[in-house]
Every structure is written in C-alpha cells, then in structure tokens.
C-alpha cells in the first residue's frame, strides 16, 4: 500500500478522489461517500455539526487503514472527513480504496467506513428546527 491520504477538512470536494486513487496496478476503485440526509426518524434535519479530536482522529484513521491493508491487498487509500456545519446533500466523509481486483477494494472500503464510525473520535450533532441532538450520546 502507498502512503494513505488521511485528512480532516472544512470543505470536502469529492470530484478529484478518483484521480487520487488511480494506479497502474489497480483495476478496481471503490469509493464511499457519506452525505447529510434530509430526515432522521421523520424529523427534518436543518444541518449537521461535526466536531473532532483531530490528532486522535488521524491516528485512529491510520490504524483502521493499516488493518484494512493487512486484510486485503490494497494499493491506495483516501479517507477524508469534514468538521463544521453541513447542510442536506453536503458530503461529510469520503473513503476510497484502489486494488488490483474488486474483491479487495469493496470489502476494504466497507471495513474502513464501518470502523471509522465506531472508533474515530468525530461527533455529530443533528440540528432540527426546535432542538439539537448529539447522535448516539444517550441510550
């Protein structure tokens, strides 16, 4: 695996991710983009606010990508997550993996986004019309 691109950014432009993942030995590229949805449990979401513990988030991203590269033969990896306030349809995270065959890039991409959501210290507050809720904070 080449050195992965791991970033916390204020603005996320996903249009160039393909170029970053392109590689002469990669026949397959899998990209996941997470975006702000309009409704949560039938309540209209006005915005999402993301906060992170940046130094630790980058460390945890690196651990996750290393684990993925030990499980599957991947060539290039990009993980970018936003901080700040995001509106409906804005992208908030992009995970991209390139590998020789799609048997590797699909599960590696899925593994990285699944693990990121469980371990990387990033917190999301849902802003509704009349309230704000830190996601998953309470049982």
């Amino acid at each position, binding site marked *: 695996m080449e050195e992965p691109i791991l970033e916390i950014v204020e603005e996320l432009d996903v249009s160039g991710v393909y170029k970053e993942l392109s590689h002469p030995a990669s026949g397959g590229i899998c990209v996941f983009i*997470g975006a702000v949805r309009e409704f949560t449990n039938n309540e209209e979401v006005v915005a999402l606010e*993301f*906060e*992170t*513990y940046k*130094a*630790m*988030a980058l*460390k945890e991203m690196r651990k996750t990508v290393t684990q993925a590269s030990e499980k599957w033969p991947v060539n290039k990896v990009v993980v970018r*997550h936003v901080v700040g306030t995001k509106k409906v349809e804005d992208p*908030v*995270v992009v995970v991209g993996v390139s590998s020789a065959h799609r048997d590797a890039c699909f599960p590696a991409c899925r593994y990285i*986004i699944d693990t*990121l*959501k*469980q*371990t*990387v*210290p*990033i*917190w*999301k*507050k849902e802003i509704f019309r009349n309230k704000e809720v*830190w*996601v*998953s*904070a*309470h*049982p």
Partner: protein
Amino acid sequence: MELLLFGIAKDIVGRSSIDLPSKGVQPRSVAELKELLIADYPDFSKLSSFAVAVNSEYAGDDVTLGQDDEIAIIPPVSGG
C-alpha cells in the same frame, strides 16, 4: 493535568477543557477519573458510554495517569 472535552462531554461540563485536580482530588487512573467525573457531573452517567483517551489513544480503566499526559473524554463517536 489537562482534560479535553468533546461533543456532549463539552456540553455537560460547559467548557472544552478543565484542569485537574478537581476539588483537590487527583485521579491516578482512568477508572478514578471516570468516578470523579460522574461524581462532579452526574449527567455523565446518563450517556450510552464514554471512553477516555490518554495521549490520543483509547485507554482502559487500569491505565495510570501522569502529570504530563493529554487526557480526553470520548463520548460515543458518531462520525460518517
């Protein structure tokens, strides 16, 4: 010893960091820190869970805390 607070932990305490010792009590381990926090801020006991990071690594209850460690409260994460 500085304690960093994020997400709902920041809201509960009302600040993004606090200096320890709190009320003269100095936690020697992650477990002691958690007890201290819950005693001072009972709302911590209402969370689904919360973890502690020492020097930006997740730390189990038995990890000891030193004066120069960067300690952070990690409420349930929800990125992505």
